């Protein structure tokens, strides 16, 4: 039987380090871990609270492949494996440098949803998962809630809970079923009249702080240190605290990700103001599927349509 620890131990001699998750400051917040010492393998965990997409570190921190170094092991849920694939497609990461430990995923928990569904109110001391249920142990009692009730929005619409690219697989969990209409949230918004949609975005984006967490958490935003949104020469966006500038930043960000975004949902997860900015990128992903039958991050050999020029391609 495969366990996380046994799988990592089995590939240990092929890697310099393993990127995974470790417990954080409380049971609800596992954090990215960079394991270089075999005795730290024991601290790795995998459960539906392991939300951060670890591939964000690859193109921004471990860029250049160095001769003589071993591989980098990385734990990847379905969405994370799509990000890895997209990075490989764009030549930002060398496939041969990765040892991907695939994790079929039941979905990740939205901590806000968990807080609102609880009936107990004491501090949570332990969280465990079994049979599709989340068991919360708090100072004032134990309760169980269905995982389906507290899933993050990105997981509710996930089309790839099973990793698309991997070297070894941890088959501990049954991946959640693919939804019938993965773009239902986008369509619900699109079916509203133009004025209502405009009002929706102006209201949501008003809360934006321009903290750039969404940008920095995106595995594909490798130009974050020279970002167009902060450029002064030329200047595209001002520093003014207006919804117009925030709107412009998000439009630029979305367009830069069009045809590239793998819908991992990290942008929406990390936003401190809970703005559903994933919707914007989902729309562009939908357009890519519609126009070119293209799904980013599913085939490492595929050429992203907006990064190629071929006059014979239709729909451009």
């Amino acid at each position, binding site marked *: 039987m495969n366990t996380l620890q046994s799988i990592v131990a089995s590939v240990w001699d092929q890697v310099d380090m393993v990127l995974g998750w470790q417990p954080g400051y409380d049971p609800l*917040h596992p954090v990215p871990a960079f394991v270089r010492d075999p005795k730290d393998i024991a601290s790795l965990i995998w459960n539906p609270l392991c939300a951060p997409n670890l591939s964000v*570190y690859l193109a921004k921190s471990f860029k250049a492949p160095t001769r003589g170094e071993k591989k980098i092991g990385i734990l990847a849920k379905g969405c994370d494996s799509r990000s890895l694939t997209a990075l490989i497609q764009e030549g930002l990461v060398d496939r041969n440098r990765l040892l991907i430990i695939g994790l079929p995923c039941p979905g990740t928990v939205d901590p806000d949803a968990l807080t609102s569904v609880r009936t107990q109110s004491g501090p949570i001391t332990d969280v465990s998962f079994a049979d599709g249920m989340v068991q919360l142990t708090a100072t004032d009692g134990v309760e169980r809630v269905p995982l389906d009730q507290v899933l993050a929005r990105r997981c509710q619409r996930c089309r790839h809970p099973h990793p698309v690219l991997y070297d070894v697989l941890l088959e501990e969990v049954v991946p959640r079923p693919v939804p019938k209409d993965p773009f239902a949230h986008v369509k619900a918004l699109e079916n509203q009249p133009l004025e209502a949609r405009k009002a929706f975005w102006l*209201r*949501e984006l008003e809360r934006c702080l321009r903290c750039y*967490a969404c940008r920095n958490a995106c595995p594909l935003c490798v130009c974050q240190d020279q970002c167009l949104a902060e450029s002064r020469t030329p200047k595209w966006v*001002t520093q003014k605290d*207006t919804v117009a500038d925030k709107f412009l930043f998000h439009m630029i960000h979305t367009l830069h990700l069009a045809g590239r975004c793998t819908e991992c949902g990290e942008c929406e997860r990390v936003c401190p103001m809970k703005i559903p900015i994933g919707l914007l990128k989902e729309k562009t992903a939908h357009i890519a599927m519609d126009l070119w039958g293209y799904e980013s991050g599913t085939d490492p050999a595929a050429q992203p349509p907006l990064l190629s020029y071929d006059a014979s391609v239709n729909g451009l």
Partner: protein
Amino acid sequence: MAMKSASFVSSADLSGLLVRLAEKAELWVPAPEDTAPHRVTFRPFQAGMDLDGHRLPVTSPKKLLFPQGEELLRFRTGRSSSEAAMETVLLEESADPRPTIVFGCRPCDARGFVVFDRAFLQGPFVDPYYKARRDKNLVVSMVCPGPDAACFCGAVGSHPADTQGSDVQMIPVSEGYVLHALTEKGQELVRHLENAPSQAQEQEARHVWESARRSVENVVSLMDSAPHFRKRFADAAFWRLHTERCLSCGVCTFLCPTCYCFTITDETDGVQGQRLRSWDACMFHHFTQEASGHNPRPTKAERFRNRVGHKFSYFAEKHGHPACCGCGRCLRHCPVAMDIRAIVRAMGETEDVHA
């Protein structure tokens, strides 16, 4: 006759009080966002708004005194027809700020203003924009029930019933709130409230206050971290290790009640323009990027080190307390739960200092 310094407001009367206060000043309260009810933020009060006293607000109230975008001056630039030379005219400066009240923030948020005051009012230069707002500002804080897993006010010399930075302190009791005036400005507000608390209410308030204060009694202090920081500064491996998962975004800085870094940019619209002060973060790559291409803090390791150093060493030594109120926002809302408490503790923990 003793100056009245305590009063009582029942839960039912609270919204009426807020409406009255909002008539004379811009009143900011912690309230849930309409479309994101789990996100409580500080916003201008509108009739019908419910204060949220249970959930910790995501944002701090610093925006009220330190707006995210603030015009410093306006100008018009052009060529004078006679000399064809580039001429700039400075236009009239912005209007006088309105009186403001922060109502219902926690003691940690109020303490944030103490740090701002030190930075903007007590240095070699006074910030006139901040001063003008601060002079007309009143802070009414609410005693906090106690810490959550991310809070650490107890570690930075404070506690959930701290009065520092507040003009009035509200203590929730079973029937409403007991209000204590702490400053002259606070007396002004309390004087106009009709009801005085009964003895039973005062007793309950004292109990709530004590209980809140004691809830952080056994927390390990981070107050004397400056010597550890100095010794640890050059240990590059330490900083690389502890900041490895940081994404170098600005969440911690922008949500922090004590962070005050800003940038100044000229924003033009044709020939007219404004010189704008806006929030900036030492966590961003561009923060210390020089025109020559040199950057003294090129990676997140150096930048996070500076964040820790500023809060727990440089500012702390100059002013006697860290530039940190322990509210925990930096930890609670960080995309990867960077834990500044753990890093500060670790600075003093091991003896090894690597190169």
